[in-house]
């Protein structure tokens, strides 16, 4: 099983990605997907700007995916992370895990998101509805705590 990792400016299509992971297979019992969206923060946010470290972003998510693939019996694993400007309601990140059974698929997708949050080199900056550029989003202690659950 080779994880699929894509870092792209363009939007993605969950249904098409699940179809690609499932094509020609009849041994998958469980598909778990996580989609992260841009929130409008009560109308104050115009867009999020996502900066990333090209090369390392792919490499680091691939390392996290390999760890997940070694830990759970997965049939498929995919992660897509966008960069550039993303408007409220738009998709930012997608993780899909497929397995024979639900526990592996749930845990692998959950693990991928926790590690991707704390290890993948992406940084968010807020563009506000009033036309100004807000600050860089600060990292949260709860994200570090979430990742620590798996070690």
């Amino acid at each position: 099983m080779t994880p699929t990792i894509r870092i792209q400016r363009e939007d993605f299509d969950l249904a098409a990605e699940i179809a690609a992971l499932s094509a020609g297979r009849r041994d998958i019992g469980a598909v778990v997907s996580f989609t992260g969206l841009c929130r409008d923060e009560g109308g104050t946010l115009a867009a999020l700007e996502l900066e990333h470290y090209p090369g390392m972003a792919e490499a680091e998510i691939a390392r996290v995916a390999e760890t997940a693939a070694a830990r759970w019996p997965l049939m498929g694993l995919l992660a897509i992370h966008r960069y550039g400007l993303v408007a409220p309601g738009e998709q930012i990140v997608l993780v899909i895990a497929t397995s024979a059974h639900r526990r592996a698929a749930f845990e692998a997708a959950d693990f991928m998101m926790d590690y991707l949050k704390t290890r993948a080199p992406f940084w968010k900056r807020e563009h506000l509805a009033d036309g100004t550029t807000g600050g860089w989003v600060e990292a949260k202690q709860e994200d570090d705590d979430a990742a620590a659950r798996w070690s």
Partner: protein
Amino acid sequence: MTQAPAPSAAAAVPRSVRLVYFAWVRERVGLADEQVELPAGVNTVLDLVRWLKTRDEGYAAAFADETLVRAAIDQSHVKPGAHLDGAREIAFFPPMTGG
């Protein structure tokens, strides 16, 4: 018998590395990337941070909190004590906020 070069000989060779900066580290430094010659005595990531801070106020502001800025060597996360031997690209950035 020929003798292996002493470690000090290797250290004396000028070490040119590419530094890359992201997010508010990039903004404070005022550069996205640069090529630098590592001075003698700069052996670890933390040594490099402390040397960069002496260069000007932008670097000093970027690295004001030495424990906050994260580093990667050749696109892998490293700790402040990591050695720079053989490093080609060293990156500095804030804690990640993707996902």
